[in-house]
């Protein structure tokens, strides 16, 4: 069977090997890179729609999976798998199923910001105290595009544009990706920025002078944006039976435990994982999460892109 894997190879390879050992099914995997932005495997699946080569897409996130689903590139998962998701995020038709959460957090350089002056909200990116020393990934692409679209969907276009305008006035750096944000904050070039828990953990684990803040946890705050892994069956896939087995292998608490212990540092989302509290110890329990309607986020995307171009890129 063929797996298109937008999840990092470092995270995914052992699980793929284990699946092969357990089932005897040979998996031919194709991996993505962050540098390709969203023009990697997602676009390959789009272009292969007439003659699908891929059986399962692992990764890509809810945002790009919703786009693929709306394009008719994804098939519904079996009902029992959809039901087994419980409260875990998933497409209502089961065209993508979510598991293994990560979060969009603030990564802060501890050498330049004392504890009392550190930011605590996405809104702090617009605080003049930090002018010229803040960064986000280029919001035209990848995860940050999804993030901005989610904000537009939640707060409306007017507030979204205002946030972008404030970012512009605060000389926010548009970095090449979330890993780039992490690197620049760790070096002290930027004081803080938005990145994922996966990237933030890399810097913390390496002993860089950074700390992670889960933003907007106070009363009335919007909460931290949660990303999560997704798996999806490709419509018209050549090996549906094998694809089904891989989905059942991935969507288990055992897999989520492995992902939590590995470099992905994910938090379990499946019902049994939630009951067992599968999470890396450093990620706090009871996080307040932003409520995102990913269908609405996809709908808000054109307005968000237009605003990004006009406001951040002067186009």
């Amino acid at each position, binding site marked *: 069977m063929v797996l298109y894997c937008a999840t990092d190879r470092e995270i995914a390879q052992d699980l793929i090997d284990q699946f092969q050992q357990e089932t005897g099914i040979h998996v031919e995997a194709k991996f993505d890179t962050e*540098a390709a932005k969203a023009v990697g495997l997602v676009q*390959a699946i789009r272009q292969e729609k007439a003659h699908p*080569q891929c059986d399962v897409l692992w990764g890509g996130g809810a945002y790009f999976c919703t786009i693929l689903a709306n394009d008719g590139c994804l098939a519904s998962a079996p009902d029992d798998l959809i039901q087994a998701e419980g409260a875990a995020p998933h497409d209502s038709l089961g065209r993508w199923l979510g598991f293994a959460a990560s979060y969009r957090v603030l990564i802060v350089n501890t050498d330049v910001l004392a504890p009392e002056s550190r930011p605590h909200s996405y809104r702090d990116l617009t605080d003049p105290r930090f002018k010229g020393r803040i960064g986000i990934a280029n919001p035209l692409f990848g995860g940050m595009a999804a993030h901005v679209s989610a904000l537009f969907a939640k707060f409306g276009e007017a507030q979204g544009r205002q946030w972008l305008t404030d970012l512009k006035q605060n000389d926010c750096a548009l970095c090449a990706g979330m890993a780039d944000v992490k690197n620049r904050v760790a070096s002290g070039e930027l004081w803080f920025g938005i990145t994922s828990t996966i990237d933030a953990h890399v810097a913390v684990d390496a*002993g860089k002078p950074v700390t992670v803040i889960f933003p907007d946890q106070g009363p009335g705050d919007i909460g931290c944006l949660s990303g999560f892994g997704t798996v999806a069956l490709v419509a018209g896939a050549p090996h549906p039976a094998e694809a089904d087995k891989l989905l059942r292998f991935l969507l288990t608490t055992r897999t989520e435990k492995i992902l939590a212990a590995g470099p992905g540092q994910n938090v379990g989302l499946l019902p049994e994982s939630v009951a067992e509290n599968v999470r890396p110890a450093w990620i706090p329990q009871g996080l307040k999460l932003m409520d995102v309607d990913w269908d609405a986020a996809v709908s808000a995307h054109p307005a968000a892109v237009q605003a990004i171009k006009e406001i951040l890129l002067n186009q």
Partner: protein
Amino acid sequence: MKRRPGILAVAAILLAAAIVFSPLVATLTATRLHSLAEAFHGLAGTLGGSAAIAGVSALVALLLGVPLAILVERSRRSVNRVCWALALAVLMVPPYLVAESSIVLLGPAGRISRLVATLLGFGPHSTNPIDLARFAVPGFVYTRAAVGMVMGGCLFPIVALAVASAFRRTDLRIFESARLAQGRRGVFRIAAHVLIPPALGAALLVFAVTLTEFAVPQLLRVRTIGEAVYEQIQEGELATAAALGLPLLPIVVAAGALGAYLLARARVASLSVLEGEVPKYTDRRAGARANLPAIIMTLFAVIPALVLPVTSLTWLVITAKLPPSSSTGRDGWPQPFSVATAQAPPIGTHRVLRASGFLPSLRGAWELAHDDAIRTVLLAGLVATLATAFAIALIRVTFRLRWRPILGVLGAGLAVPAPLIGLGLILLWDHGWSAAIYQGLAVVILAWCARFLPVAIFLTQGALARVPRELESAAALAGRRPFERLLSVVLPNAAPGLVAAWLAMYVLSATEFSATLLIAPPGSPLLAPSVVNLMRRGQDPEIAACQVLLLAVIALPLIPLAAARLSRTTEWLARRPAMPQPKEAANARQ
């Protein structure tokens, strides 16, 4: 009989055009082309900025490449080889690594820039650790000029190769005559006449390659037309994405055609090398005294694309040691890998690169990617061989008909953004009848040829133009057939230039990832995408290990080549007779 070369030439040109342009045409016709005006709205500045970056890149390549070629060509043979080895090593370093190292060393928080600024007295006048940590150097790393400098610094060997090729095939007596007639001014005038055309042709090639670069401008936070193309692809608007690249095509076509035309016109072939007794032009500082300027110029030229990345990498390697895990890490963090469950994960440990230092990380990277590395070396070698052989055939058949300037049009292929090539190939080959090609490595060969065949053609043209026509005519008079003449006369004489073309094709292919990522068959990953993937979550030891692995694999074919050249040099030094100095030769003739 006379029609046969014409048919062959047309067939060869059409084949080359199909290889280079078919993905673009496929993407142009993939989706309905609508709202083109809207797509271009507000992009005038971006287009202009992209052109400015490409202009800076070409200028930097000229400023580094031309003097380097002239000075190194005038140096002694042993110095010449070392200098060229260093200059060509620049081509092995992917530009995105150069950009990253420029940020690490010269950026606002750069290791060098901050140190220099502090030494110059611009540092914070405070002992407060926070003030010290906040000190940043306002620099130019995040500017268009910096993007151009990085790209020009990486691509200057193309200019240097073209200039050196012209220099070598020039009858050196004309310099001697010019010096006798007009002194140094005369030498400059002749040099300008001989060297400017190939230098400009190669600089235009650099201009074209820079136009569609995506990774470097992204890293240096500069918006280019390449980013707009990516954006349209993300939206699924392939035709619009392809259309955005169209304004670049005429520029590159003009550049390529001009380059090919200039290259053809600038041919100053001579038999002087064979005559042996003609004293070589030595200028006033020739011989051993020419070595120092050559070495200085080479060291200066390789600073951006070789010295900076190597310095950055060395720093990483030396400091690449992770702190030991503790139950509470910095800032009160708990042990990062612990899982808040009672049971340990039931299946094996993660095969991650993360380890205690550089060497374990390198071993981990090799374990994960050694199949990818071997596959990449073999495939890139095959592509380089096929492309160079095809370029030789193409140039030979078009040469007879004086159609070579047409080949400049193929240079437009360099203006096609890499993802469009990948997606175009999916559209072209993902069908039932072509499954064997699309599902195998053949599609990767097509992608790399589509991206870089124009480079192979350009460099091969220069190499073949170096061969004196008189030699081939003599072989023809001696009864040698065309293929025999090619094997016994043309290829041996053009060998250095052809090797350069092969190497350029090999290195560019082996480091390509934007198109490769899209079309590499599942289960057969290739090294560049794998390394970029592994570096994504990299800590210092892993990043250093991945960079070393990539550079080592790219350099692999150079080792036997360098060994062969070194043994030839040693042999030559042992056998060579004492060279007469110009005055001695003149006395002897008298």
